[in-house]
């Protein structure tokens, strides 16, 4: 290709509407139609035969038997099938022949408005002298200044007028009134007049040449225009009742037949509306046409009228058809009309609308099928080659060739020396047209993959034009235009390409685009293999071509790793030929390279293919990932099942809790069509994720959840590599420990165990950082009911203890922490065997000690928070900790008060002073002495037995220690330290002693009081003198008397 010339010429040569291209471009790009279906009238029947374009030309125009016959020939086919091209080819041949007995007129689609058509007829030089030509020309020029909005409004209201005045009774009077009411509703009017709506379509047919690609669209109402949805009908809430009634009958899911009936009804007014809107009266067109034919007859000429596309003549279709079927003999002879041969192009769709009415008048029906050009690969390649050649040649060169008769053997060919390593196409003249930037495979494969109609127009629009544009303006982006196209490249080749590209030394951000381009290129341009052959090719395409498209890195990598195979020479070269060559299209050009072992049944293969389609639509087209739940669950299961969690430092219990709660949501995929926010690890839309999905798609559908499917070894490589690369991610998310040894919920459970034991009075009395290893493992089964525990603590202490033991998560909290450190074999999460994970346990304890047994609200991260069991365990500890401070305050106040009470009994010992065991014992001696004397003196008080006091004496040391705890200043101590200090219930320990002190004091006071009372009584009796008890003198006298008596004896 000559890039510089192509830049100028692409716009001219590749005009989609072939009528617009110049004669020379047209002829240089023409590829003969080999197989056209022709139905020729024979009596009342049509005879069908296949003909070449040459045959058809001869039959219509060079057949002496037909020469003076009126002929009405229809050329039908779908949009873009080549009708215009064919008619254009007839025209080119007709004007080149040396016969001036006919006026040949081609009615161009490019000037296909009603008035444009009339103008073209009036422009024929032979008819310049017809009568009334000035009046007709004025008609053509009328209405030109009217605005678009006004014109559209005119069209719309003319429909209403026509329906109001319809007397056909096609529609009942009531229905008609309701329809009119609806048409008069402004909301409904806005709908019909909106962009792309029926009024706009009709408007464009009257006023201007359509710029739409689909030139064959019919300017009519369609059922879709008139089918209303609920939302729209709701907007008509305030409309006239009749309008609403009618709107309801046009609701979707209602009676489709009724909607079709209304559509047909309104369409029956289209022609009248267009003509009247354009200011042309019924009969005007036929009148003009007759005038022209009379004039030609007068001049001894016949008329050959080629109409590219009658579909576009909305407004005069009926009139034009009527004019064309009017013969010049028989009953019409009196009109003196010239002989008319007309060849009329029409879409098959439109043809069906008028065929029956004109069936008897049609001389020939020529059908050009879709794919007429692609049926034969040779023609298809030739078609593209000729366009490539034409864009590379200056228009003057082709004009000169056309002027000299346009002989095919003389057709100029651009010699593309810079691209001689690309495929070429050899013409009959033996000249070679370079297919750059295509290969033969590319043309055939791209054609096969086309999703639009496979017609010449769309081949040019969707394949040739974008490809040429890309190589002209940015060859490094080539072939971007077909990146999203579906191809049958094997997954193996595609995956290998992906793997090679990911290993290339190019920026990571460029890799996705690089791979997509390469996959597209390999899919369409090559033989779909990565075979490196000794003729310097990859997949049958020269490596230098890959280099030109900036795939040099790939080539270097592939050729350095591949085994070179010997090349296979092509069986025969494609050349242009008059005879059709058997089709090769739609057959895979090469067999898959992998010999697949296990047989896959059709159903499984279909399921996999359908799944793969979804994944491709997601990865290549950027759509949502649908039907992803099963594959996501299976990939998550694979992860849960294949990582040896314990070996990765994740206890199986932790994994089990995670799995029970999160399940398949462990993985998610970008743009999955629902609930992505609930997934834990989201995999982006990358080649790797794409391969992952396909890998497990095969596992599910082809292997039926096993690795027993073709080339499973490659799938295993992918699955294990993917897992290896992502293992850390999964381990971290399930371990969920960030920078710590254990996850927050286990930390919480272990801390809870300490609080539980402290509150229940069973923790050892050590500093918090010296709590023994066993503390966390041994179970605190039940609440403490010992008498030594049940009295002495503050009320809030007992409340908290009750709270801990009554919480439903109490047991689970402990069991979780225990299970966490059990080394299980296999998946036996509930094993009765216990083997301690000592290294982890020791690390955990170190961390717990360092934490001061405090938890922060935010320690439980989102992932753990999502697991109910973990969250509840964590919350229990948080609640416990939140209650601890109040307990500490109450407990220390109680302790201090108790201590002050006790110390009140000891002179000279303040709260800051140490109460030693000896002090206690000394006090107890005093008490003991008192009771002894009291006993001796027969004082009537409750004597505390000596044994009881002696028991306190023996516990003096304990009491002193308890008192030390009560007297201690806790203001700088952490709450946990205070709880541990009070866990042994020192208040409870001191209380009985305090009671004793209180009783002794009371008893002393009582004894004293009794003594005073006695004295008072004696004094009152007068027996008490000089402060001496008179009983003493009495007894002394008695004793002395007795003593004297003894002496005397």
């Amino acid at each position: 290709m000559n890039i510089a010339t192509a830049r100028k010429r692409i716009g001219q040569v590749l005009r989609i509407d072939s009528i617009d291209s110049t004669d020379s471009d047209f002829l240089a790009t023409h590829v003969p139609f080999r197989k056209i279906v022709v139905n020729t009238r024979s009596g009342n029947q049509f005879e069908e035969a296949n003909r070449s374009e040459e045959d058809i030309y001869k039959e219509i125009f060079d057949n002496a038997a037909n020469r003076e016959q009126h002929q009405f020939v229809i050329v039908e086919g779908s949009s873009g099938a080549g009708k215009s091209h064919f008619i254009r080819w007839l025209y080119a041949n007709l004007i080149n022949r040396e016969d001036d007995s006919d006026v040949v007129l081609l009615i161009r689609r490019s000037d296909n408005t009603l008035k444009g058509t009339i103008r073209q007829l009036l422009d024929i030089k032979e008819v310049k002298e017809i009568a009334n030509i000035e009046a007709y020309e004025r008609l053509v020029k009328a209405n030109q200044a009217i605005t678009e909005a006004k014109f559209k409004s005119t069209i719309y209201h003319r429909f209403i007028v026509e329906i109001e005045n319809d007397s056909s009774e096609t529609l009942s009077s009531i229905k008609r009134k309701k329809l009119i009411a609806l048409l008069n509703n402004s909301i409904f009017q806005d709908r019909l007049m909106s962009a792309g709506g029926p009024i706009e379509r009709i408007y464009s047919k009257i006023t201007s040449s359509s710029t739409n690609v689909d030139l064959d669209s019919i300017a009519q109402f369609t059922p879709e225009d008139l089918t209303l949805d609920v939302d729209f009908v709701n907007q008509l809430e305030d409309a006239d009742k009749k309008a609403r009634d009618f709107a309801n009958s046009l609701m979707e899911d209602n009676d489709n037949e009724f909607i079709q009936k209304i559509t047909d009804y309104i369409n029956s007014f289209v022609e009248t509306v267009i003509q009247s809107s354009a200011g042309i009266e019924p009969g005007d067109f036929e009148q003009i046409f007759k005038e022209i034919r009379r004039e030609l007859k007068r001049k001894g000429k016949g008329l050959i009228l080629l109409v590219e596309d009658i579909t576009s003549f909305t407004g005069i279709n009926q009139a034009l058809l009527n004019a064309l079927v009017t013969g010049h003999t028989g009953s019409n002879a009196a009109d003196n009309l010239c002989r008319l041969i007309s060849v009329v192009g029409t879409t098959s769709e439109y043809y069906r609308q008028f065929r029956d009415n004109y069936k008897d008048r049609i001389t020939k029906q020529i059908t050009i099928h879709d794919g007429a050009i692609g049926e034969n690969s040779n023609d298809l390649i030739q078609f593209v080659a000729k366009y490539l050649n034409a864009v590379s040649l200056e228009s003057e060169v082709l004009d000169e060739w056309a002027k000299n008769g346009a002989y095919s053997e003389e057709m100029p060919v651009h010699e593309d020396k810079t691209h001689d390593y690309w495929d070429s196409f050899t013409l009959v003249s033996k000249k070679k047209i370079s297919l750059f930037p295509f290969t033969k495979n590319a043309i055939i494969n791209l054609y096969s993959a086309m999703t639009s109609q496979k017609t010449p127009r769309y081949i040019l629009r969707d394949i040739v034009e974008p490809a040429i544009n890309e190589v002209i303006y940015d060859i490094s982006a080539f072939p971007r235009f077909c990146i999203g196209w579906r191809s049958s490249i094997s997954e193996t080749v595609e995956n290998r390409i992906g793997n090679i590209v990911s290993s290339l030394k190019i920026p990571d951000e460029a890799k996705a685009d690089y791979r997509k381009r390469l996959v597209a290129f390999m899919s369409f341009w090559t033989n779909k293999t990565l075979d490196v052959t000794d003729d310097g090719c990859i997949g049958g395409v020269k490596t230098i071509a890959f280099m030109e498209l900036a795939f040099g890195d790939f080539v270097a990598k592939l050729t350095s790793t591949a085994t070179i195979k010997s090349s296979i020479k092509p069986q025969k070269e494609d050349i242009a030929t008059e005879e059709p060559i058997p089709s090769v299209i739609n057959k895979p050009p090469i067999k898959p390279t992998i010999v697949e072992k296990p047989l896959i049944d059709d159903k499984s293969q279909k399921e996999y293919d359908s799944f793969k389609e979804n994944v491709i639509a997601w990865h290549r087209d950027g759509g949502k990932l649908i039907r992803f739940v099963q594959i996501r669950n299976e990939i998550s299961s694979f992860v849960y099942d294949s990582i040896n969690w314990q070996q990765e430092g994740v206890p199986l219990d932790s994994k089990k809790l995670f799995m029970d709660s999160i399940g398949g949501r462990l993985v998610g995929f970008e743009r999955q069509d629902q609930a992505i926010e609930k997934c834990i690890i989201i995999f982006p839309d990358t080649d790797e994720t794409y391969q992952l999905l396909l890998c497990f798609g095969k596992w599910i559908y082809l292997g039926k959840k096993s690795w027993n499917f073709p080339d499973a070894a490659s799938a295993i490589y992918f699955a294990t590599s993917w897992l290896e690369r992502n293992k850390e991610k999964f381990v971290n998310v399930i371990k969920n420990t960030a920078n710590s040894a254990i996850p927050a919920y286990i930390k919480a459970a272990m801390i809870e165990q300490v609080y539980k034991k402290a509150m229940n009075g069973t923790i050892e009395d050590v500093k918090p950082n010296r709590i023994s290893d066993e503390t966390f493992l041994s179970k605190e089964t039940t609440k403490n009911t010992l008498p030594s525990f049940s009295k002495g603590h503050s009320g809030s202490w007992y409340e908290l203890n009750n709270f801990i033991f009554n919480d439903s998560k109490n047991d689970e909290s402990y069991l979780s922490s225990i299970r966490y450190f059990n080394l299980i074999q296999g998946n036996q999460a509930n094993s009765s065997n216990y083997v301690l994970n000592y290294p982890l346990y020791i690390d955990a304890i170190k961390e717990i000690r360092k934490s001061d047994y405090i938890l922060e609200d935010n320690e439980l991260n989102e992932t753990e928070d999502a697991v109910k069991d973990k969250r509840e365990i964590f919350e229990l500890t948080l609640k416990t900790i939140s209650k601890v401070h109040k307990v500490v305050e109450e407990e220390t106040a109680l302790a201090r008060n108790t201590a002050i009470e006790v110390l009140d009994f000891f002179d000279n010992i303040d709260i800051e002073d140490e109460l030693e065991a000896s002090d206690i014992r000394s006090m107890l001696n005093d008490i003991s002495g008192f009771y002894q004397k009291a006993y001796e003196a027969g004082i009537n008080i409750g004597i505390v037995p000596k044994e009881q006091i002696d028991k306190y004496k023996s516990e003096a040391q304990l009491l002193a220690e308890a008192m030390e705890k009560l007297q201690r200043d806790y203001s700088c101590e952490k709450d946990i330290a205070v709880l541990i200090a009070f866990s042994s219930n020192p208040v409870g320990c001191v209380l009985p002693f305090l009671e004793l002190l209180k009783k002794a004091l009371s008893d002393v006071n009582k004894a004293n009081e009794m003594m005073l009372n006695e004295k008072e009584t004696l004094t009152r009796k007068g027996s008490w003198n000089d402060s001496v008890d008179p009983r003493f003198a009495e007894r002394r006298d008695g004793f002395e008397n007795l003593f004297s008596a003894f002496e005397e004896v």
Partner: protein
Amino acid sequence: MFFSPIKTEPIPERVFSISKIVLDKAPIDEKELEHILIPSELNTAKTSYFRPVFDTAVELGLIGYDDDHKVVFTGDKNDIKSLKEFRRFCNSKVFYDSTTDFYKMISCFLSVNDEWLQYGSVTTSNEIIRMINKETDISSLKLEKDVILGVRFWINYLGFGYFQETDKIFLPNMYTALKDFMALGDFEKGQEYSIEDFLNNLHSGSAVALKNARVSQTLNLAMSNALRLMHDNKEIELKIHLDSEKTWHLFPNEEHEFTSDVTHVVIKKAVK
């Protein structure tokens, strides 16, 4: 376990755990050691796993008795710094005797490539058990009861592949083990080795994965996957020198850059 009958109880983590306790507490009375490893109030099972775990640590030379019959640590503490170091240590120790059941089992698992995939579970498939029995001479009964179940933990841990625990399917990819054998072997970063030299410079334990490899110049699926993954991760670079004297064959993978042939390896990253 490695040099005596294969059992299920001494899984790698337990052997690691007991070694750690001994390192911390030695010299320690055996009863006390048992109590720490298997706290009696938590172990509700009738049998204790202590003895097989203890014996395996002894087999590895990590623990032993002193003259007072106290248990002492007899290894290098660096070998049990983490499970990763412990794994590498094990890979250096357990494959020096090709006549042991353990060696034969691992070698058998690796040499079958993808053959077993069609049979499903390796612990219940009669076909697989028959094949192992033929290859190793270990009785089918033992294979079914203990051997395969016990080996599965170690083959996974030592880094020879993944084990799908529920379905009991082994997925060969000895990426981790190969890296251990490289680290234990003799390699220089940046240096290019022919495949033969590469294999010769690996630690001798790698022989377990190279059954028949040198004769046929073909590497098994586990080793091929390992080399490919290292290549993909840019830790090594596989190469084909067309003029190379010998061409080796990886297990075919049409999706990979290296579908089969390979002649050289360049060490891109130092293996730690």
